[in-house]
């Protein structure tokens, strides 16, 4: 039924229902502005904190566009990757990167990341997540004090 309806609207007959087309256009405009403002915010956070933007892109995509979780995660990487590259270059140009620290830990992050993605995809246990948030909270408190 829905498909029939959109086909109908899509043709030149749309002028029969101008109010429907109008609300659709306003909806799209609203989504556009929501996405742009979310983008401005995400970019600011990712540049300032050197990460963490991905955790904001996923809810932005699921709430504003209504993407499913899996697609939102994949799309988030496509957004975050250029951001990290650009701000990483800025950080390096300003001499923030230290190879003594960066060499071994980058190697660890890359190996761990691939291993985590391949092996532990099904380990999205709620209990584990709770522990993870607990650690994050504790680390945050420790960093403030």
């Amino acid at each position: 039924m829905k498909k029939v309806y959109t086909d109908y609207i899509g043709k030149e007959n749309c002028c029969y229902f101008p109010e429907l087309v109008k609300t659709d256009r306003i909806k799209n405009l609203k989504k556009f502005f929501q996405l742009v403002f979310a983008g401005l915010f995400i970019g600011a956070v990712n540049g300032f904190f050197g990460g963490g933007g991905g955790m904001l892109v996923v809810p932005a995509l699921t709430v504003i566009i209504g993407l499913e979780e899996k697609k939102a995660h994949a799309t988030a990487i496509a957004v975050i990757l250029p951001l990290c590259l650009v701000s990483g270059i800025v950080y390096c140009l300003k001499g923030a990167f230290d190879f003594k620290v960066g060499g071994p830990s980058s190697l660890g992050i890359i190996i761990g990341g691939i291993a985590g993605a391949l092996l532990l995809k099904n380990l999205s246990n709620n209990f584990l997540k709770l522990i993870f948030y607990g650690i994050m909270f504790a680390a945050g408190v420790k960093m403030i004090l």
Partner: protein
Amino acid sequence: MSEGWLYFAIGLTGGILGGMGMGGGTLFIPLITIFMNVEQITAQAVNLIAFVPMALVTLIIHIKNKLVDFNSVWYLLLPSLITTILTSFYAVDLKSEILKKSFGVFLILIAVAMFVSEGFGFFKNKKEKKQLKIPKDIKQ
């Protein structure tokens, strides 16, 4: 154990969590600053640089599986590129101590937000309540 191996181990921990989709960078940075006394700005730089090759591999896999929604990428990417450059320059010149404290606040906020969203389905996909009314005479 030499320091290099400790850096490697912390990177590995953060990487595995990141690969599982739990935001590895947000854990790697506090781990390495708290336990290894690395400067906050260095930790952030390392996190950014290390993410690039890892994300490149996963992104290629995701594109092959057609999971990336390119229509929405540009609307988020272009505005965020502008602000990310500005805040990067700002963060690099900031005092490490201030940066560390604000990162702590950010971590707490994220932890609470994630906890709430997990508990009450806050960020989950809202079903569109307002469906367009379909006139009865459009039926085939």
